[in-house]
């Protein structure tokens, strides 16, 4: 397939930027950045996912027209292109942008309702780590060996490691409840019990129920607003809520005439902190494979084979292989030792590296 250096470099830059964006996306939640900044990050995330989706579709079509789609998808990391583009666009950045555009704080119910109806909220959170698979593509460009063999083998092992981590995270997320989310559920249950208690004790008038509720729910940092029978008992601090919360950061719970508006930010901050840990674990693994393992592989396998190959094929190439004494019993170095000690001396004896003419060269004269 024809390569377009400008496009390839553009995609490479996008991959670097999307990794930065992925980190900042979580970091902004962890450090309670303003909604304005988080929205900018959300839009940029959507833009990147859109670019990568277009890239994947274009590559797929181009390969399919040459009947090479399977080759592209299975052997040339097309599956990485796929996993890190369309699922993210459809399950993560797309829905988030939809809520941003069509939901507001008071209409949050609608947005959250859509996601709940899709039952993919949990999956959406996890799919964010799929973006990190793209780092494997960066590795292909920056690591320190020119050997195709080394590139391929290191790429396989890196992809396997990163993908294993990601799959583990997805499985864990599907099978177990996020402990921070269960904390939220506990809090909601606590508030419900409080409501039950209030209603049991204050049975006389609506007025005393409201007063009692006001006292109980005042200064709870997870509650943004409490309503009872269409009356605000504990209203929004509009300025604070607008600055730090998107519609997606609020959960609304109705219970026995009470409506609670919970802030999800404390839970999200803890989850984001975990995501940042995963992010760095994956980055460090990829860097370790790129710079430590690839060097090890090159020095002890591919470089040695490269020199042997040149020495066997080229008459005038007579450089010896450096033998790693600690690994001299490995098959590669045993062959290299034989090449150094027996093949090259014999080669130099037999071929004096002379260049020659042939009768054919002569017969071309005067023609």
């Amino acid at each position, binding site marked *: 397939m024809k390569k377009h250096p400008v496009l390839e470099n553009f995609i490479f830059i996008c991959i670097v930027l999307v990794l930065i964006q992925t980190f900042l996306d979580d970091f902004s939640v962890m450090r309670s950045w303003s909604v304005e900044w988080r929205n900018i990050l959300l839009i940029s995330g959507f833009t990147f996912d859109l670019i990568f989706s277009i890239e994947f579709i274009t590559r797929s079509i181009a390969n399919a027209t040459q009947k090479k789609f399977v080759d592209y998808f299975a052997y040339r990391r097309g599956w990485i292109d796929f996993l890190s583009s369309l699922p993210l666009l459809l399950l993560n950045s797309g829905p988030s942008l939809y809520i941003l555009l069509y939901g507001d704080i008071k209409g949050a119910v609608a947005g959250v309702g859509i996601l709940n109806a899709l039952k993919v909220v949990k999956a959406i959170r996890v799919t964010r780590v799929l973006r990190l698979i793209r780092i494997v593509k960066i590795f292909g460009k920056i690591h320190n060996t020119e050997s195709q063999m080394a590139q391929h083998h290191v790429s396989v092992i890196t992809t396997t490691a990163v993908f294993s981590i990601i799959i583990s995270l997805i499985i864990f997320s599907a099978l177990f409840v996020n402990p921070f989310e269960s904390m939220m559920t506990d809090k909601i249950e606590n508030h419900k019990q409080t409501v039950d208690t209030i209603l049991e004790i204050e049975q006389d008038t609506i007025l005393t129920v409201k007063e009692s509720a006001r006292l109980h729910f005042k200064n709870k940092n997870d509650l943004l607003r409490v309503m009872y029978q269409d009356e605000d008992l504990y209203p929004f601090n509009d300025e604070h809520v607008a600055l730090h919360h998107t519609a997606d950061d609020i959960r609304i719970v109705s219970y026995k005439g009470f409506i609670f508006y919970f802030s999800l930010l404390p839970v999200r901050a803890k989850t984001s902190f975990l995501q940042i840990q995963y992010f760095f674990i994956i980055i460090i693994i990829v860097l370790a494979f790129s710079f430590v393992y690839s060097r090890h592989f090159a020095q002890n396998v591919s*470089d*040695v084979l490269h020199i042997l190959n040149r020495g066997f094929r080229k008459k005038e190439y007579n450089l010896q292989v450096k033998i790693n004494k600690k690994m001299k019993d490995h098959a590669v170095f045993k062959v290299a030792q034989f090449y150094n000690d027996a093949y090259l001396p014999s080669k130099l004896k037999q071929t004096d590296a002379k260049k020659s003419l042939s009768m054919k060269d002569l017969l071309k004269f005067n023609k």
Partner: protein
Amino acid sequence: MHQHQEKISSFVSHLLSNPNVQSESALMAEQVVLNFINTNLEKLKVNFQSPQFFPGVPASQILQMIATDLRNRTVKEILPDIYSAIDSVDFTVLGNMFAGTYNSDYYNQMIKGYIKEIINNREARLTFQAMFNIFKASALERYIGSSFSRHSPLYFELVRVQKNNLRTEEYVNYLKTLLLLRGAAFLKEELPPLSTTKVNIVSFKNEPRLLSQYFSLRSKQLQRKLPGIDSSVLEMALKSNLSETYLTPEDSSARFLHIMTQRFHNYQEYRTIDRGAETPDKSWFSIMRKNAKFYGFDKRLLEDLFMIAGDNNW
């Protein structure tokens, strides 16, 4: 005849323009063409009689004309380079060894004159191939410098065993002089009482016991042409063409130069050294440790040169 000469010249140009030859130095190109002619002599004789080549001209005459044309081209190309090489040598060391009053300029002119004489001899001419590469790569400066600074076995051999107590730069210039003059061994001369016919070093291939006599007579004969150069210097230059088998332990410079001239005869510069590969000199000396007997190299010197090359990443 003139018409043939033009055609011969055009034929030689055609051979030299072959990509396999073009990348070679003038000396090696000449060698490749002559090897080709030797290998294919019988076929060539037939071909030369075809209308396309030189019909009616005796093959021996054609071959002679080709060889002359090649020689003239080669000499024309290499002589200025040899003169430049001579200009880069400080011959003061020769004056000191001879205990004479001759200065470096005197030797410079004398050696230039002598080389102009011997350059027409093909085998003598070919000895300059290694010399060019050694000078270009500053090989003597590097290896002698390194060996002398660390007092390695090479230093011990050259200074103590050969009893030639020179400083580093002096030794380099001494060895360079030997390189310039070693081609004299290939000139055929009468050497009475050893031989009444013309002989050169190759003539004693099958009679090595006569070599010491040859060296003694030939160096004295040479000294008459090159007054002011000690006969021991000339003898060592002649000996540097031989393998260790024919030399005495005191001929350290000759044994060293025999290795170095082999190393640099087909010297090829590697633009880049592959990662994981040994450096070119280290590789060569290491390989030659296995082939020392075959090439007649002094194994202890090879070992030392291998260590020097390895320590210096050469």
